[in-house]
């Protein structure tokens, strides 16, 4: 709760007296069950389709369950197995690098893009729609296009070599780190449009008067961006940062697409979710170990979120 909330009071007027007065009156006006009625449907869905399966995951983590049968209690064996899993070490490092690179880029770039398409210019509907298409492009076509770009004999290597930047091709799709960064660029490419529209909806709330006042004061574009736009969308930005963190730690499809599901030589370019998928899919899937990995990922995700919440509270 504190994570995203506390900055909102910034907008509240400083006249504390009237505010407490109305607040206490509103408590009398607000019937006690009204909020419960409003959240009731959401809570039903939360319990049936989210919490119930989550409990399932937690229980499975202590069993050797398979999709069909099995499922004796095995204590903490699945968690002990993690300690010996050197693929998991690679996956954790990858997921964390992924998050650290994606977080700043995807927080800022979609906001800039939103500012670019915010202004009503002729044809802007077309651009907005076009920028959103990567979000919904089919995985098969994305794989084709990106391989065509990044392949040893692909467009980027061909251009770089013909311009004399490179003597030989860069192994974008086979070297561990290059592969990771190729996947990150794919994530950012897809994320641009996705986060752009969330920012757009928040930009409407940024007061134009403030912008104009700052312009009158002689603030340049950069200053106005930092002192008006960013504080104005701060709430949304924090929410977006949470979403980026969660989805970066859970990256799957980009790495899967670029390595054709192999996870690279030695499986060193797998993410944690790729490991979960590998173990859980199919008839012989090891649901127990996959569930234990899910819980590990949950714990790891909580960490950076707490950090973010702390930073937010301090500033």
């Amino acid at each position: 709760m504190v994570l995203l909330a506390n900055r909102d009071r910034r907008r509240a007027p400083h006249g504390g007296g009237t505010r407490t007065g109305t607040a206490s009156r509103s408590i009398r006006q607000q019937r006690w069950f009204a909020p419960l009625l409003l959240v009731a449907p959401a809570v039903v869905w939360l319990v049936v389709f989210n919490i119930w399966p989550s409990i399932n995951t937690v229980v499975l983590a202590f069993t050797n369950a398979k999709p069909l049968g099995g499922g004796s209690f095995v204590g903490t064996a699945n968690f002990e197995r993690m300690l010996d899993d050197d693929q998991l070490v690679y996956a954790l490092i990858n997921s964390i690098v992924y998050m650290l690179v994606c977080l700043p880029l995807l927080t800022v770039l979609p906001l800039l893009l939103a500012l670019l398409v915010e202004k009503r210019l002729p044809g802007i509907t077309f651009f907005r729609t076009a920028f959103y298409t990567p979000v919904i492009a089919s995985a098969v076509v994305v794989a084709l296009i990106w391989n065509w770009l990044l392949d040893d004999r692909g467009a980027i290597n061909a251009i770089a070599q013909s311009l004399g930047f490179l003597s030989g091709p860069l192994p974008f799709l086979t070297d561990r780190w290059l592969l990771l960064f190729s996947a990150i660029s794919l994530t950012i490419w897809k994320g641009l449009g996705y986060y752009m529209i969330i920012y757009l909806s928040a930009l409407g709330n940024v007061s134009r008067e403030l912008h104009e006042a700052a312009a009158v004061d002689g603030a340049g574009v950069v200053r106005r961006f930092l002192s008006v736009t960013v504080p104005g969308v701060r709430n949304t930005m924090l929410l977006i940062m949470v979403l980026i963190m969660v989805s970066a730690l859970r990256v799957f499809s980009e790495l899967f697409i670029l390595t054709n599901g192999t996870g690279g030589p030695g499986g060193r370019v797998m993410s944690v979710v790729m490991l979960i998928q590998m173990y859980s899919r199919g008839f012989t899937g090891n649901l127990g170990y996959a569930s234990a990995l899910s819980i590990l990922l949950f714990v790891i995700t909580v960490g950076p979120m707490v950090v973010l919440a702390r930073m937010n509270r301090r500033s």
Partner: protein
Amino acid sequence: MPATTRAYAFNSVSPREKVLRYALLLVVLAITVGPFLWQLSTSLKGAGEDIYTSTPSFLPAEPTLDNYVRVSETVPIWTFAGNSLFVAAFVVIGNAVGATLAGFALARLRFRGGKFIFALIIATLILPGEVTIIAQYITIREMGLADTLVGVALPGTIGMLNILLMWAAFRAIPQELDDAAKVDGANVWQRLIHVGLPNVRGMLSVITIFAFIGAWDDFLWPLIVLTDPSNYTLTVGLQYLNGAFSANPRVIAAGTMIAFIPIVIVFAVLQRFFFRGVEEGAIKG
């Protein structure tokens, strides 16, 4: 007067800025539309043309609409699209109502358990759900909803992510607006309708798009829930184009393009609402 010219400059765009903006728009366009163009061009290529080459050509040499005709001959497009539309509408309405109500209550009302519910929503958002799909199916089956479109739609009808997005939008409404309404004696419902909703239309259109696309594009879940082909959604039904022993990439691309159209329409219609947040809402006065 300098102030008015500045204000003028703020509302419209100088020619130089216009050129710069269009240049940037075109750069981003070039980066983003590749896959879309490739698919469009593949779907228009004639049977004599090679699809996969080391230097893809974006212009079909023998442009034809035959592939679209073949899709409509192979697959009952209208039935499947109707099913998809039903699921999407169900999910969109569910999210627009459910996520809005919950987002409003969590952001704007104080009540016992509110923080706890909020924490649970965040928690379920970060616990990976990869291993739960079979359990989810069994839940739906126990409700007697296996092989029904409602069964397909139900789990996504109130998305936890959408609640969070609506929550953020409601939090962004200035407190003084709400206070003013309270002073006027507005009850919870009136505050939601008259103060809340006009200021969150942007985010409401965003979650509508997310919900629509999520429902429209989903493949694995409807595949598992549905059995009778007459209930298939479009993404599942289009798999008929990808049969055993032969698959024509031109026809598959045409099918994908057809599935793409409704998304583009929904997006193009809703994107104009992104900006009608505060600027046209109650804060204006």
